[in-house]
C-alpha cells in the first residue's frame, strides 16, 4: 500500500465511522416542560432501588420528596427544625419530647394524625419489620397520642442523638399499612407500587432499574409545587449519569470531585459544593500487634503529606483533620497539628523499634473506596509511607466484601491490619461514637478496629451524657483532644462533595449530606426554565 492509498483508506474509514449513526435520527426532543429529572440517588448519599424508608441507610434526598419526617435539618445542616411537627419541646431532663403536629393530609386525602406518628414509631422500633432504626430507637419507652395533633415520646434515658434519628424516620400512614403483618412489611409491594406520604410530590410509578416518577401534590401544605413532575433516573455507572447531565436529559446529579473541573467553567451548569461530614482515616486494627506503640501511629501522621494530597488530588477541596472533627466549634486550640515531617516519622519509628516489630514486610490496607480518586490517594500514601520504611499494600474491595471482613466477630484481624475508610462525623457529632467507643466493639456496635482506649471512651461517654446543649460542644472538644493525642485513627481529612445542576433549574436546593440528609430542600419551589 503506498502512502496515498493509506491516507485515502484512513480518510474513508473515518468517514464511514462518522456516517454510521446518521440513521439514528434527530434527538432534539429530549427536554421536557415542567418535568425535573435528576440522578437523585447517584453517589454516596443515594440508595437506588430502596423504597422503604424504614430500611433506608441512605437515599433520604429522594425519599423526602414524597415522605416527610417529624423534624428535619435545615439546608445548612446547622440545626434541626420542624417538618410534620410544627413545633417541638424537649423537657429539662431530656427524657420527654412533645411534638405539635402540622395540619395536613396524606396523598389519598385522609388526614394525618398523631395516631400515624405512634404507628410509625412502633413500626420503626420493631426489629421484625426489618427496621434499621430499631436499635437507635431502643431508648424510647413510650409514644403517646393524647390528641390528634400532639405526640409525646418518653425515653428511658436521655439520648443526645434522638432528634437526629427522628429526622430519618419518615412518617407512614396507619390506614394503608396497619393490615400488613410486620414480618412482611420490609419488602412489601406497596412501597414501590402505591406508597403515599405527605410530601410535595406523589408517587406515580417505578419502571424497574430505569426511573421513579412523581407528580406534584396540589394540596401540599407548603403550596402547590412549581414543577409538574419529578423524575429520579437510575444509573448503573456514575459516568452514565454525567453523560445524561451533559446531554440535557437530566438536570442534576452527584459528581466525583475529579469530574468537577469539567463543569466549573461551563455557564450551562452550576457546581454545588458542600461538606461531606465524613472523616477519612487510616485505621489501626488493635488486634494485630503492630500498632500498640503510640509513636508508630504518630509516624503515620508525620509521614503522610496531607496538604500535598489535598492540593494535588482533591484540588484543595478538603480540610485536613487533626482529630475526628474539623468543624471550628469542635476543635480546641493547641492540639498537635502533625505537619508533614518524614524525618520525625523515621525517628519515631526507630525509637519504637519498627525494624523489629515489622520492618519492611508488606501490610495490607483494606478499603471499600474504589473510585479513581481513592486509588490515587492510596498510591500517594503508599509512596510517602515507603519513604519512612512502612510498606503498605492497598486492597480495594466492594462494600459487601469489606463489611463481611470487618464485621466478623474476631480471629481474622490479619485480613485487615490497616483500613482506609471514612465515618460520619456530623452534623450530629455523636455519630462518631459507634466507631471509636470501646462499648461499641462488635457485635454491639461498629468499632471494627477493636479500639480500647480509655481516654477516648471516657471522652465520648461524657459527651453523650451531656444534657446541657450549651456545654455539648466543649465535651466534643474533649473527644477531639483525646483522638488527637491517642490517635486511634490516623485522621486524614474531611473532603468536600459535589453536585452539578443545570443552570435551567431555579430555587433548587441540594447539599451533599451524609446518607442524603434529610434536610429542608423545599422541593415544592424547584422549577425549570424552558
Amino acid at each position: 500500500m503506498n502512502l496515498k492509498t493509506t491516507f485515502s483508506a484512513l480518510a474513508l474509514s473515518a468517514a464511514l465511522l462518522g456516517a454510521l449513526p446518521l440513521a439514528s435520527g434527530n434527538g432534539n426532543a429530549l427536554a421536557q416542560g415542567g418535568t425535573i429529572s435528576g440522578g437523585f440517588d447517584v453517589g454516596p448519599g443515594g440508595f437506588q432501588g430502596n423504597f422503604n424508608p424504614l430500611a433506608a441507610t441512605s437515599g433520604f434526598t429522594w425519599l423526602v420528596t414524597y415522605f416527610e419526617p417529624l423534624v428535619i435539618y435545615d439546608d445548612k445542616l446547622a440545626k434541626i427544625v420542624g417538618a410534620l411537627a410544627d413545633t417541638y419541646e424537649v423537657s429539662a431532663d431530656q427524657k420527654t419530647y412533645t411534638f405539635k403536629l402540622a395540619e395536613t393530609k396524606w396523598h389519598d386525602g385522609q388526614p394525618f394524625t398523631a395516631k400515624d406518628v405512634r404507628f410509625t414509631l412502633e413500626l420503626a422500633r420493631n426489629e421484625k419489620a426489618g427496621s434499621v432504626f430499631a436499635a437507635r430507637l431502643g431508648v424510647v419507652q413510650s409514644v403517646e397520642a393524647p390528641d390528634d395533633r400532639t405526640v409525646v415520646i418518653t425515653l428511658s434515658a436521655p439520648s443526645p442523638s434522638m432528634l437526629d434519628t427522628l429526622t430519618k424516620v419518615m412518617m407512614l400512614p396507619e390506614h394503608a399499612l396497619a393490615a400488613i403483618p410486620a414480618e412482611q412489611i420490609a419488602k412489601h409491594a406497596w412501597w414501590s407500587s402505591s406508597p403515599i406520604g405527605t410530601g410535595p410530590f406523589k408517587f406515580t410509578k417505578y419502571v424497574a432499574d430505569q426511573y421513579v416518577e412523581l407528580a406534584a401534590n396540589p394540596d401540599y401544605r407548603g403550596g402547590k409545587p412549581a414543577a409538574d413532575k419529578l423524575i429520579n433516573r437510575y444509573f448503573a455507572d456514575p459516568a452514565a449519569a454525567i453523560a445524561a447531565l451533559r446531554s440535557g436529559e437530566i438536570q442534576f446529579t452527584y459528581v466525583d470531585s475529579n469530574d468537577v473541573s469539567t463543569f466549573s467553567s461551563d455557564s450551562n451548569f452550576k457546581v454545588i459544593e458542600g461538606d461531606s461530614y465524613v472523616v477519612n482515616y487510616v485505621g489501626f486494627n488493635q488486634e494485630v500487634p503492630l500498632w500498640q506503640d503510640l509513636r508508630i501511629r504518630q509516624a503515620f501522621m508525620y509521614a503522610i503529606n496531607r496538604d500535598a494530597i489535598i492540593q494535588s488530588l482533591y484540588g484543595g477541596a478538603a480540610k485536613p483533620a487533626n482529630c475526628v472533627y474539623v468543624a471550628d466549634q469542635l476543635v480546641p486550640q493547641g492540639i498537635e497539628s502533625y505537619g508533614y515531617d518524614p524525618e520525625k516519622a523515621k525517628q519515631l519509628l526507630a525509637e519504637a523499634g519498627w525494624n523489629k516489630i515489622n520492618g519492611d514486610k508488606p501490610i495490607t490496607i483494606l478499603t471499600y473506596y474504589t473510585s479513581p480518586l481513592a486509588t490515587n490517594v492510596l498510591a500517594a500514601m503508599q509512596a510517602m509511607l515507603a519513604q519512612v520504611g512502612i510498606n503498605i499494600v492497598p486492597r480495594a474491595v466492594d462494600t459487601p466484601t469489606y463489611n463481611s471482613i470487618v464485621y466478623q466477630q474476631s480471629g481474622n484481624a490479619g485480613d485487615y491490619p490497616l483500613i482506609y475508610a471514612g465515618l460520619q462525623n456530623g452534623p450530629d457529632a455523636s455519630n462518631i461514637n459507634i466507631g471509636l467507643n470501646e462499648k461499641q466493639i462488635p457485635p454491639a456496635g461498629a468499632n471494627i478496629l477493636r479500639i480500647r482506649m480509655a481516654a477516648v471512651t471516657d471522652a465520648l461517654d461524657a459527651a453523650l451524657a451531656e444534657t446541657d446543649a450549651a456545654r455539648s460542644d466543649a465535651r466534643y472538644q474533649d473527644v477531639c483532644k483525646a483522638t488527637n493525642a491517642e490517635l486511634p485513627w490516623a485522621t486524614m481529612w474531611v473532603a468536600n462533595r459535589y453536585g452539578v445542576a443545570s443552570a435551567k433549574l431555579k430555587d433548587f436546593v441540594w447539599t451533599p449530606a451524609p446518607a442524603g440528609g434529610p434536610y429542608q430542600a423545599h422541593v415544592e419551589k424547584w422549577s425549570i426554565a424552558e
Partner: protein
Amino acid sequence: MLRYCLHRLLVGLAMLLALTVLIFTLLQLTPGDPIDAYIDPNVAMTKEAMDALRARLGLDQPLPVQYLAWLSQAAQGNLGHSLQRFNETVSGLILSRIGPTLLLMGAGLSIAIVIGIASGILSAVRRNTVPDYSLSVLALLGISSPAFLTALLGLYVFSVRLKWTPSGGMLTPATDFSVGDLLHHLILPATVLSIGHAALIMRYMRASMLEVLNQDYVRTARAKGVKEFWVVTKHALRNALLPVVTLIGSTIGLAVGGAIFVESVFNWPGMGLLLISAVETRDYPVIMGATLVIGACVIVVNILTDLAYAVIDPRIKVA
C-alpha cells in the same frame, strides 16, 4: 436419532445441575451477603442490628439446607423471591428482562450481519483497492476494541457531544410509549454491540468470498458471459455464506457476554443489568435464577447446533 437426542438432553440436564451447584458454591465463597451489601460503611451500623436483618432473610440456615430448598423449588418452576427488591419473584424479574435483552442482541446481530456481509463482499470483490484497505482497517479496529471502550466512546461522541441519541435507558421517562422512541434509544447500544461481530463476520466473509471467487464454476460462469453482479450474488454468495452462517451461530454466546457490558453502560433494562445489580447487592436467588436461565439457553442452543450438524452432515456419528 431419538437415542442421540435423549442422550444429548440428559447430558444437558446434568450440565445444568452441575452449573447450579457450581454457582451456589461460588456464591458462598464470595465474601459478603445481602445484608453486608446494604450497609454504607460511612454510616455505620451495629452488628446486632445486622444479624437481626440477616435472620429475617433466612440467611442463618446451613448451606446444604439452603441449596436443597432452592433446588426443590426450582425443579417445580419456582425460582423464589428477590432478597433486595420489593416483593418481586425471580421468574417475573427474568421474564421482564429477557425481552429487552433479546431485542438488543437481535438488533445488534442484525446490524452486524448486514454490515459484515455487505462489507465482506465489497472487500473481496474490490480486493487490494482503497475500499478494501479502509474496510480492513475498520475491521481490525472493531475486533480489537473491547465493548466497554466502544460503549463509553459512543456515549461520549453521540450522546454528550453530538446529542443525537439518548445516553441511556430504553424509553424516555414520563412519555407515552412509541416505537420511534424505543428505536432512538436502541440504535446506539445495538450499534456498539454490533461492532465486534460485524468486524468478525466481515473478515470471514471476505476470506470465504475470495476462495469461492477463484473456483472453477465461477470462472465458467464468467466465461459464459454472466454479468459480474450476478456472478457475485447468484453464483458465489450462496456458497461463500456457509462458513459465515456457522460463525454467526457460534457468536450468539459471545453476544450474551457483550450485552452485559453494553447494558450496564447504557442502563438497558435486560438480563445483564439485572445480573450485575444482583451481584453487587448479593441477591442470591436472582443470581441463581438468572444464571440458570442463561445457562439453559446456551445448553439448548448447543444441543440444537449439534442436532443440526447431525442432520446436515451425515459424517457426524449419531450414537
